[in-house]
């Protein structure tokens, strides 16, 4: 039963990792940009949530109503003000600029919020649990997983059933022709980044309720999200959810073997999948 429990808890944890990954997957799909600062943006969203809950006195989940639009706005401005300038044939500029951004964000957060670990207080939600068939499930992990499924469903729906989604797919297929058809790709990229950081905001708040965080943990979150994307296969959002779940299960099962082995087990699972299925489990587009 312990093992079943580890697998169930890992699956729920995978929901959080899928949320880390969804934004990464989305912007890669639309503009082939890999944002090294993604993890630091997740942490920044958590800190924004902390500030909102502390000053306005809102429940962390209610703070989403402020943090999501704020992060989306930051995303749009960031894309149009900075990242659009880096896009092109050359791989180096986006990589190095987002790497620089990551260092700036991390140290900026350190300057404003200090290195002390922080946590958001979500009251009874943190400890509430439900008993199911001999297992005890935390309400928060179940809620996180449900949110992850809903977010990925919503992104999928946006991609295939809305005008914005059509614009995303058009610039993804061919930027120049999309431009000729009257789409402003700079604006479309801005919208994609806004959507991605909106999802990042949800991920950040849920992270901040679940565990304590400090400015240095961004890199680790980026890596988890990245692993979920690669395991699931590039360009496939449902695959990303599956990737997150596999990563989560590998970690909880690893932790069951030896507590010091948790994160390492996740990385090893990723490397094994990379060795046997280099394109991930459910690839849709080639890198």
């Amino acid at each position, binding site marked *: 039963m312990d093992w079943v429990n580890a697998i169930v808890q890992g699956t729920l944890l995978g929901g959080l990792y899928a949320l880390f990954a969804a934004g990464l997957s989305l912007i890669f799909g639309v503009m082939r940009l*890999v944002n090294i600062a993604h993890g630091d943006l997740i942490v920044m969203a958590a800190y924004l949530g902390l500030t909102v809950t502390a000053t306005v006195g809102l429940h962390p989940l209610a703070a989403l109503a402020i943090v999501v639009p704020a992060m989306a706005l930051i995303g749009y401005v960031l894309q149009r003000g900075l990242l659009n300038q880096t896009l092109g044939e050359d*791989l180096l500029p986006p990589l190095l600029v987002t790497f620089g951004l990551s260092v*700036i964000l991390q*140290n900026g957060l350190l300057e404003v919020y200090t290195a002390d670990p922080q946590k958001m207080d979500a009251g009874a939600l943190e400890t509430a649990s439900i008993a199911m068939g001999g297992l005890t499930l935390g309400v928060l992990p179940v809620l996180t997983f449900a949110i992850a499924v809903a977010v990925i469903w919503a992104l999928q729906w946006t991609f295939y059933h809305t005008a914005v989604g059509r614009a995303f797919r058009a610039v993804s297929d061919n930027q120049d022709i999309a431009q000729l058809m009257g789409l402003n790709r700079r604006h479309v990229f801005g919208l994609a980044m806004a959507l991605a950081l909106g999802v990042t905001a949800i991920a950040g708040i849920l992270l901040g309720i679940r565990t304590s965080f400090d400015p240095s943990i961004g890199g680790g979150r980026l890596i988890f999200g*990245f692993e979920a994307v690669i395991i699931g296969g590039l360009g496939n959002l449902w695959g990303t959810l599956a990737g997150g779940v596999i990563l989560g299960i590998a970690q909880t099962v690893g932790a069951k073997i030896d507590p010091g082995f948790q994160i*390492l087990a996740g*990385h090893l699972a990723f490397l094994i999948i990379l*060795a046997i299925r*280099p394109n991930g489990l459910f690839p849709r587009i080639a*890198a």
Partner: protein
Amino acid sequence: MSLQNYSVTRSSKAARVAAVLGALCVILLISAPWWAGRAEMRLLGELFLYLALASLWNLMAGYAGLVSVGQQAFVGFGGYMLFALTMFGGLHPFAAIALAGVLGALVSVPVAVLIFRLRGAYFAIGTWVIAEVFRLGFAQVSALGGGSGSSLPMAIVKSLASKRDMREALSYWLALGAAVLVVTCVYLFLRSRQGLALTAIRDNELAAKSLGIDIWRTKFTVYVVTSALTAMIGALIFLQKLRISPDAAFSVNDWTAFVIFIVVIGGIGTIEGPIIGTLVFFALRETLADLGTIYLIVLGIVAIVVMLKAPKGIWGLIRTRFDLQLFPLGYRVIAPKDDKEA
């Protein structure tokens, strides 16, 4: 006017002058233990090791297109090998440094086979995962102090030289030697046939492939050689520090972020760039380091601005302005003098 009057040459007056000045500089630096203070020597030693790391990263990212953010994997690996081989293998530190390079090369082979499956930016994050695996792996080894790390026993330190002055001079010369060796190796490599292939790949991968260059193997060679040398530099770094821990050994900030900033600011894809970048980086650090996190923010902003406004860095600006090349790689055609009147 005949074609025979034209000559093709690699060298130039500027390059010859630079070579002489460079040699004089190296001689002056070799003699530093007789004229420099203890603090200056420490700083210079650190500068040389950063120069070596930056030149190696530049060879990978600027020439082979392998943008790694995980070179700390090999810095830390080399450092840990120095400790393990001297403490448990009973080797002399010099032998341990050499062997760390060999082991670094061996370890990099399976790593390369695995992460070369990732392309572009995903390759970059893949290298970071490898570095994390190394960090978490070494943290599990309780003989090396686990998560809290360990210090190099005094007996091993004394085996280098019994007197402290002599040890410090030795460690300084090792760092200087490493920097000169790495820069020379990179230069000679780029002038060789392999280096030409590498430059061709950088300029146009498809065209290079159609000329029969084995792209995978060329990149693989660069990755393995760079990893071996990076591991040796890592061993030297921790021979200076005398203490190692997983977080210090596999720090992404210390061994990758700073190195990337050095190369980007100095000029990526040039041999001169990392040298200039290292000087600028240390000048900034010595003047702004008291500002702590603000200093890092400034460094990040400078790197972003350079990347966007002057993608070839400080050296790129100098080169286009004065048509200089201190480490001549390309050939140029020299027209005969009397042609100008004709």
